């Protein structure tokens, strides 16, 4: 109930668990496009949720999936918190683990 009156922050913060890197994601923007705008070498290929290259593991926080991840990720990956960055809109600050491209 109180949440209704809490000011809605415009941006969310993403921390990459394997490095000290952080960046912000504007409300409504995908995790991948914000990462790329922040100059992070996040892997990607299709940007439409079909190739799985942008997958990462959500360690902490909430996201909203834009497409069903079940077509690209295995059940076990989904249970382990894997998400597709190109199809994820943030609902809170998050911490993720991702293998960045060299």
């Amino acid at each position, binding site marked *: 109930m109180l949440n209704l009156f809490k000011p809605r922050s415009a941006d969310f913060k993403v921390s990459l668990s394997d490095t000290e890197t952080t960046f912000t994601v504007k409300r409504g923007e995908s995790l991948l496009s914000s990462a790329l705008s922040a100059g992070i070498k996040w892997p990607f290929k299709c940007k439409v949720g079909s190739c799985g290259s942008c997958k990462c593991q959500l360690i902490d926080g909430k996201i909203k999936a834009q497409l069903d991840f079940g*077509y690209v990720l*295995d059940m076990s990956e989904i249970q382990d918190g894997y998400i597709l960055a190109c199809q994820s809109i943030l609902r809170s600050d998050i911490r993720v683990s991702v293998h960045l491209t060299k």
Partner: protein
Amino acid sequence: MKFYVNARYLIVPFMSLIAIAGILIGGSFAWVGVALFGLNTIIDTLTKNIHLPADFDETGESYGIKGFQYAVMFLMLPVFIVLQLVLAYRIFQYTSLTPIETAAFLGVSYEVGTSGFNLIGATLSSGLWAGLGIIYGHELSHNKKEGFLVSRLIMALSGASHFTYAHVYNHHLDLGHEDDAATAPRGRNIYAHAWLSHMGQSRFSYNLEEQRLSKRGSSALNFDNRWILGYLYSLPSIVLFVWAGGLVGVAALFTVWVVANFLLEALNFMGHYGLIRTEGPVEHRHSWDNDSVFTSWFFIEIGRQCDHHVRGETYFWELDDVEGPNYGIGYFSLFVLTLIPPLFRVYVQKHLDNWDEKYASRDEKVIAAQFS
């Protein structure tokens, strides 16, 4: 500027309403939807040399208003439903032998009842404008959950709900490969492509569901299967047309679906005909751009395929010219050429030669050589 950028994409909504009004007014006005296609072909051909870039302000922000463009796309679902309803209404009058006479509503005279000839006009008009559902079905397939469902429902009105999944998971991933049903190889004509691409995408969509459900230990034969669900979304149209006109209704709906799906596949055909991709990411060279001004505005930039396939997450009003392969003419003009396969082959050959020489990678050149 904001008004101009947003209003220019309203040609299809506006003309769809004219096509609907034509069917409602009846008589020879039932053919208005077909006539508009002819008019559009002339406009597209006359303006083929005008190519405009996307419009951004000095900070690089697009002038497109997302809320407005989404509202229009969502509102096109009821517009396409009304298009089917007015056709069903005319079929009902025809099969129930309603006498043809003139009446008036709010000072506008219209024809009660319809001749068989004008019913053909109404059916073709409906098919052509229903086929344009693809431009909204396509855009919404890429953006947001709610949009995905609306995309499925719009496509279901043409019996093609499988498109939404096949487009994202097959076409975008396998573009230019043999496993992409929607990429037409060199030498294939549009008629063969329409059938092969439609069936191939539907098969892909079924297999995709089968795999997804088997990962969860479920059988493919249940209502959680989105391929089955997609065809069930088309059921209300079938019931409506059977109720409105029995066999005549079925024949009319079949015609609408054939015409609409033919247009859908024509866009796939023109977007990638003869282009080849070996391993590696999709690049601008793997699509043909069709961005002459009328095509851009009418088809809400679906012709900016080169940019779209590389930045699939980008809204249509932000897509731009990326100097990829370009036929140099708009979709209407090119569509007329595709209908005459020998003519299309002659026209496209110089563009393919140019692609082989300027755009193709070494491996792609090797494959291209096998076709010549």
